[in-house]
């Protein structure tokens, strides 16, 4: 069970603005989903099991640290919604 404040807290962490209708609906839906997820607590001795970090056995994957050309700046900026002085322009982080 997840309450309204928890939904709002998580939405804030995720930078998602939700309408009142969405908060109510997601609270209900998330509670149902989390109830199902909690069935994993039926499994005994889970704490002794090693968590999976990677599914296929691979050693450390390293490459030589050599400089290489990256995409040209103009090409990367082409898709940006607002560009100024060769960078991404955004509103002030602390306008208020």
């Amino acid at each position: 069970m997840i309450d309204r404040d928890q939904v709002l807290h998580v939405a804030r962490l995720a930078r998602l603005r939700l309408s009142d209708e969405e908060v109510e609906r997601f609270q209900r839906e998330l509670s149902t989903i989390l109830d199902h997820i909690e069935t994993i607590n039926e499994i005994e001795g889970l704490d002794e099991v090693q968590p999976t970090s990677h599914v296929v056995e691979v050693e450390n994957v390293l490459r030589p640290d050599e400089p290489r050309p990256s995409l040209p700046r103009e090409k990367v900026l082409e898709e940006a919604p607002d560009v100024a002085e060769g960078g991404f322009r955004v509103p002030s982080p602390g306008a208020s």
Partner: protein
Amino acid sequence: MSADILSLTGAQAAERVRAGDLDAGELFAFYRERAAADDLNAFLWVADGPDGANSSGPLAGVPLAVKDLFCVEGVPSAAGSRILDGYRPPYTATAVRKLTEAGATVLGKTNQDEFAMGSSNENSGYGSVQNPWDRERVPGGSSGGSAAAVAAGLAPWAIGTDTGGSIRQPAALTGIVGLKPTYGAVSRYGMIAFASSLDQCGPLTRDVTDAALLFRHMVGRDPCDSTSLEFPEEVPLPSAERLDGVVFGVPPELTGEGVEPGVREVFERTTKLIEELGGKLEEVSLPHSRYGIAAYYVITPAEASANLARYDGVRFGPRAETDGDLTALYEQTREQGFGDEVKRRILIGTYALSSGYYDAYYGRAQRVRTKIADDFRAAFQKVDLLVTPTSPTVAFRLGEKTEDPLAMYLNDALTVSMPLAGIPAISIPGGLSDGLPVGIQLAGPAFSENRILDSAYALERAIGFEGVPVGV
């Protein structure tokens, strides 16, 4: 001639072009016309011409439908999301690049559930897709557009991605073949990420030979994806006619409860065929697979919540109009750009990773994942491959499950365990139930694609599925 072209598989079309019996330009124009006239909403974008096609390669210019989430330089690539509406990436995904270098030609981008989150294609930001077998039904998802396009003969073949069943389930629901490779077999570079520890791309095709042919040209290590690996062997075209000596495990957990009677009937017919072809059946248990959905819906939303943090209206995609500060810009862009299911998963994932809950959810789910992988390892000590239905039901009606997210999630019950364990699996058409296709799934240990393809090929011949509802 047109009916003739339409009847050719991808491999047959490539063969004709190489033999000089079919012109690659004519082939492209034929499918371009069909894709442009698509009324299933399978395509989101169709190429004007065979740009930069290399019809001298082994794939001989044969057109390829590409799921929207593959980045293709200069081509709209939005992963089915409004938050990437109109985005044209400055680079091309390795899988697409390798296929075009081998001679395939990009025909168009196909519809999908937004960021591959869904099992019906109804979560697309660009509208749902109709199943060519019954237009009131879903084609499955998330690679629903790719599957519908191949099933309806709008494209000879396609690629998609599979995180919890997104290649296999739509292939099953549309009566085609879909292969989810071993994690790491194909580079993920340029695939717009959903859950990075599971995402894999693979082919959706009319038959097993086509799946093998595309897969052959997709595999290999890529310096741009450090999880990619060299495939340990050549990928020949499958040729097995018999299944002598192959032991197929039948896990009761993935073949019994929840599987509807019509699907079970086709499954039982298939296991009889396996025996007739000389294969052996043995019951094996996968006791933790029943927790697959629970683990999957912690791990993938958690990874997605991190992967989707990059969509903030700053570097690409549309930006919300705001007169507030930077945080308001992020929040409004994300509010407007993401659909319901994506928001739902971001919230679950953020919750599961948040302080105080990490161990209870994400940590435990990763332990369950180990148990699921151990079950498979134990099973493959006894059997060569596993056989199950791909989906517990045939294609359901549009709108039937959209109001109940958990019911939609449970649809993936037979397919989520394999990507959680990183192992490969294929879905092939097993027959019809009430006039709708039923998929049969074969799974094997990591890097057993050749064995899977060979067995699927023998089975495909024996089943003799007269599938593709071409021309509907």
